[in-house]
């Protein structure tokens, strides 16, 4: 097998088009994760727009995580214009984002990942066999999550109501209570689903050592926090200075490294590794029951981290719903201080740290735009860790089929989203 080029075209069960090229010679293994997404350069399209149009277009970065793109774009513009929001609106936005995260995690774990561990090709096999118990459970939780986004954001994919300055429609108390009433059942079902994911056997190799995420006291942060870069905390506004991007000829995505040239990982595992003491409730209970601890450096543990986050976020949503349902009026009036400026928002997308950065001129037009997506940051880690895995498997005398299967499984555990990674250049 040495010297041979292995090419996996369009890896299945991931979001977007990614080819994998593996070259093996006597001395080393080289892996290239090549995004093959045709680029529609959103950056170029955003420049010259009215500021209010930016979130509409920026959310089209990705259909799986459109909610966080929309909210992050809105937050960055608000930061540029000095708009401050009421606590209620911030809570409602966090609620919508939580709905999007749960939907995304469920899609990844139960539609993309689980066939790897059940030895199946696709979730469709289960449907064909009429083996619907698990799918019905997934559907009931996913529907609840999407219902949150739909009721409070207008639509589950590319939500419409998050706008610069707040939300274009405020929920009624009845809406809040309707969702709240279902949480007891949803928590029960989600606990069973999380157990399923925790019970699989995950290899502890390969390991990543550099993890980057938001960090906050008192919870897993989504929209606010400092940036924790390999244990060191920094002002999120300065984050772009801590990483550098490289253009690879073979890929339509940007690839990122830390300033010291090392790859790093963002996502659910990074969030838990950096915030584990803040994990609480049902997720924490399951950690003790299954003897799971963080930090965990195995890339495959990202699946476990996502499963635990589903439970954690459901309880977080319940907390927000209870708080808002007790109120007679939701306070919404925003305060604006200026017409122009440079704004940045650093948030946690389902797949990890997300940056939107815009500058707006006196006429309310966007003059520059920059978006750093989670998968673009993960691509170099994917390549390095895949090289490690291939090296070990080759020494064990693995066949081509085994090699391909295991590398795909590794790539999938990062939950890559190539639509996001490939659709941006800085302007």
């Amino acid at each position, binding site marked *: 097998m040495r010297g041979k080029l292995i090419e996996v075209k369009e890896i299945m069960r991931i979001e977007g088009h990614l080819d994998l090229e593996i070259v093996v010679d006597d001395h080393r293994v080289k892996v290239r994760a090549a995004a093959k*997404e045709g680029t*529609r350069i959103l950056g170029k399209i955003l420049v010259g727009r009215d500021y209010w149009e930016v979130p509409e277009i920026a959310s089209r970065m990705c259909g799986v995580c459109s909610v966080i793109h929309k909210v992050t774009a809105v937050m960055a513009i608000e930061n540029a214009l000095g708009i401050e929001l009421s606590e209620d609106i911030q809570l409602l936005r966090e609620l919508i984002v939580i709905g999007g995260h749960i939907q995304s995690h469920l899609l990844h774990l139960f*539609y993309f990942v689980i066939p790897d561990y059940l030895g199946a090709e696709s979730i*469709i096999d289960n449907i064909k066999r009429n083996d619907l118990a698990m799918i019905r459970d997934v559907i009931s939780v996913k529907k609840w999550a999407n219902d949150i986004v739909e009721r409070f954001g207008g*639509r*589950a994919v590319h939500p419409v109501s998050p706008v610069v300055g707040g939300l274009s*429609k405020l929920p009624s108390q009845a809406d809040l209570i309707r969702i709240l009433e279902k949480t007891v059942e949803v928590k029960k079902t989600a606990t069973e689903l999380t157990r399923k994911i925790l019970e699989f056997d995950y290899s502890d190799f390969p390991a990543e050592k550099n993890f980057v995420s938001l960090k906050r006291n008192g919870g897993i942060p989504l929209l606010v926090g400092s940036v924790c870069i390999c244990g060191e905390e920094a002002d999120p506004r300065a984050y772009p200075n801590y990483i550098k991007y490289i253009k690879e000829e073979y890929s339509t995505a940007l690839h990122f490294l830390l300033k010291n040239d090392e790859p790093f990982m963002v996502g659910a595992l990074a969030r838990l590794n950096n915030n584990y003491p803040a994990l609480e409730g049902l997720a924490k209970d399951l950690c003790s029951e299954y003897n799971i601890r963080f930090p965990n450096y195995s890339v495959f543990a990202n699946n476990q981290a996502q499963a635990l986050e589903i439970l954690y976020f459901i309880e977080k949503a319940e907390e927000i719903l209870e708080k808002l349902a007790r109120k007679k009026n939701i306070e919404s009036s925003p305060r604006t201080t200026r017409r122009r400026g440079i704004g940045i928002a650093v948030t946690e997308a389902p797949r990890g740290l997300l940056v939107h950065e815009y500058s707006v001129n006196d006429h309310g037009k966007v003059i520059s735009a920059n978006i750093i997506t989670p998968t673009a940051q993960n691509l170099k880690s994917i390549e390095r860790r895949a090289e490690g895995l291939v090296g070990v498997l080759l020494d064990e005398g693995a066949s081509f089929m085994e090699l391909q299967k295991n590398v795909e499984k590794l790539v999938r555990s990062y939950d890559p989203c190539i639509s996001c990674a490939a659709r941006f250049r800085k302007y």
Partner: protein
Amino acid sequence: MERLRIGLYCLSSCEGCVVQVLNLEEKLLEIMKYVDIVECRVLGVRREEPVDVAFVEGFVASREGEKKLVRIRKKTRILVAMGDCACSGGRFLMKDFGDSEIRADPLSRIVKVDYYLWGCPIDQKEFLSLVRNILHDRKPREISRTVCSECILYERECLLDRGILCLGPITRGGCDALCPRNGRNCFGCRGLSDDANIDAFIGILQEKRVSPPQYLFRMRELRRNEGKTH
């Protein structure tokens, strides 16, 4: 009824339309009693066999994309353009009418398209209705009404009266006025209604003291080139 073999394909896009299909949840399980999904990358199924209906999301951005689309057209009986990217090259959502010099071809520029599911993303009800129609060998009805005419039924205050640019009066309906119903302006993602009168719309904007955006004039120009008078 014979089982329908369908494929879901993505060219260059955000894959949000496919997510809309997956988000049908139990309704998707229901249609899978009559429909086999034989090709869908995100679900991990790939069979190099002919299909009855190919639902294609995304626009053509490259030579490879073009080849892929031609391959899909060759093996399907019916081809459906799914979402604004596939229907128009994304120009109605992005408001990019060929000015940015980025290749973004709608499917119809390369192959014959049988049906269109408009919007960004597609509307779930319209998807289900199209599948039902195809199952019964019926031709789906095309919508000529505008978003504005759907919005009026909700008796909300008109956004244009508040000086907010809303594209409802010229945009193809079918979304049940989702955006205005949620208190915000229509962004025009479903494309121009067949009866859209852009001249009159620009007049209304000026009357309401809303400055007409540059792309409206570009849309009017393109429409004239297509042989429409207004």
